[in-house]
């Protein structure tokens, strides 16, 4: 017997423990069941695209730190790739290797947060989150050593990186690489086979491959649905074609798969760093680029595989020192498109973990 009940609206957010920032979900609930959901955002809108139009090409780099603030290095790199493409700058080889090391370390750091926050949303009371934060802290230490800051690195420059790695960087990185696989195994032991987690996440929030492509999902969300698409392999930027790594994919596209996908990607990143570390050549780290870059009129779109998905910068130049238009393709925002289809019919608790498994940063959604 079905009892007729009245749906009610629950505003989750803007201040809610698991919306990962100032993000609001206007959920229509029928009891505990989610009938409909409408994401509402814009609370963190700073108009970065407009600000970029008034800054020099170099001056935009600090702004990109503030897009997806837990993976600043990737944002720096994406923007610099776009500027280099626009202005035709050639990057020295050592700089490329440093960039790859940094980008992959950043991927590990960001995915650790993504996985930790997802497990925290599942209700594992901060334990996995804090364990993963510990490893992230080790990575952030390395970043601090190279760039001088712990969150907004501002390390990449058009034509290379701002300064060479300090000499104590490589021994520290080597130590980190030695200990990281052990910790990864520990995380897997902690919750990977946990019956409750499997019951909570397996089969929940399924995103099929067709739907994922149609919704322009990218990154781990797309690959967990079984689409073998990684910008590093499909459209190699920087020097990713020099490295030997796999693109792991999962089959069903549920929350558990997205979680496992991220863990697998961290392992692949470790492989890339290992290779880059061994092959790191010496030489200059920055091409001879004037501080005020004045690219020829034209447009360029450069993209890379950020921890959250395909991050791209679409730059239009009118031969001035500031970009005429700077559009950012935010993976967080576009991955959210599929959220509504994924959560309908699930419970409030599932809404939270499905949302957590997409892994967003509000700084990137709102820009």
């Amino acid at each position: 017997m079905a009892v007729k009940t009245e749906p009610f609206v629950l505003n989750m957010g803007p201040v809610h423990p698991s919306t990962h920032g100032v993000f609001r979900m206007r959920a229509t609930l029928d009891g505990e069941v989610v009938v409909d959901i409408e994401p509402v955002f814009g609370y963190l809108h700073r108009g970065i695209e407009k600000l970029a139009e008034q800054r020099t090409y170099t001056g935009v780099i600090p702004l990109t730190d503030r897009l997806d603030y837990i993976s600043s290095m990737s944002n720096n790199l994406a923007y610099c790739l776009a500027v280099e493409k626009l202005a035709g700058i050639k990057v020295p080889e050592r700089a490329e290797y440093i960039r790859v090391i940094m980008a992959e370390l950043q991927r590990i750091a960001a995915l650790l947060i993504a996985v930790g926050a997802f497990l925290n949303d599942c209700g594992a009371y901060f334990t996995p989150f804090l364990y993963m934060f510990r490893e992230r802290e080790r990575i952030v230490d390395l970043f601090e050593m190279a760039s001088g800051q712990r969150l907004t690195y501002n390390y990449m420059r058009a034509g290379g990186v701002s300064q060479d790695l300090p000499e104590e960087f490589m021994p520290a990185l080597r130590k980190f690489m030695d200990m990281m696989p052990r910790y990864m195994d520990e995380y897997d032991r902690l919750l990977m086979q946990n019956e409750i987690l499997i019951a909570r996440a397996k089969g929940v929030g399924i995103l099929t491959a067709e739907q994922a492509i149609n919704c322009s999902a990218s990154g781990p969300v797309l690959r967990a649905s079984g689409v073998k698409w990684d910008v590093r392999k499909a459209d190699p930027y920087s020097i990713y074609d020099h490295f030997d790594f796999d693109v792991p994919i999962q089959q069903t596209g549920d929350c558990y798969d997205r979680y496992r996908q991220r863990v697998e990607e961290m392992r692949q990143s470790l492989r890339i760093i290992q290779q880059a570390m061994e092959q790191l050549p010496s030489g200059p780290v920055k091409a001879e680029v004037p501080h005020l870059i004045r690219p020829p009129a034209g447009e360029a779109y450069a993209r890379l595989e950020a921890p959250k998905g395909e991050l791209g910068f679409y730059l239009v130049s009118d031969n001035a020192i500031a970009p005429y238009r700077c559009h950012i393709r935010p993976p967080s925002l576009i991955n959210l498109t599929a959220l509504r289809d994924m959560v309908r019919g699930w419970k409030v608790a599932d809404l939270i973990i499905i949302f957590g498994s997409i892994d967003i940063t509000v700084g990137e959604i709102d820009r």
Partner: protein
Amino acid sequence: MTVSLSGKEVARKIEEQFPGSVAESSQDTLVVRADFLLDVARFLRDTEGLELDFLNFVTAVDYYDHFEVVYLLSSMKHNHSLTVKVRRYGRENPVLPSVVGLWQGADFQEREIFDLFGIRFEGHPDMKRIFLWDGFQGYPLRKDFV
């Protein structure tokens, strides 16, 4: 490596199907007339050999006399991409057809363009401001917005 499709070749194919739909084509871009946008988009998505099933991004650029809406399409199957542009002249209440029906990924991005450029997309299920609040005056990413 993702192959960038030649705009000229694709334009020839489109012209066979929909005469007069391509306004301009060059090596890497294809400018489509706004009236034909949906037909061309469907053609690009469904034609054998093109199958541009992945919409990387949609954005707009303000060139004072016209708005240019840029679509970057890729194909997961063939690993190639194509930049499609649409121009809309005139600054008062510009309207373009929405491609949400073809690529659902355009949903939030078209709302964003509406929010920041004021280009209204017809056929979009939920055309309202996305970042800014409803009573906001003006469209910030237009060049004349101070």
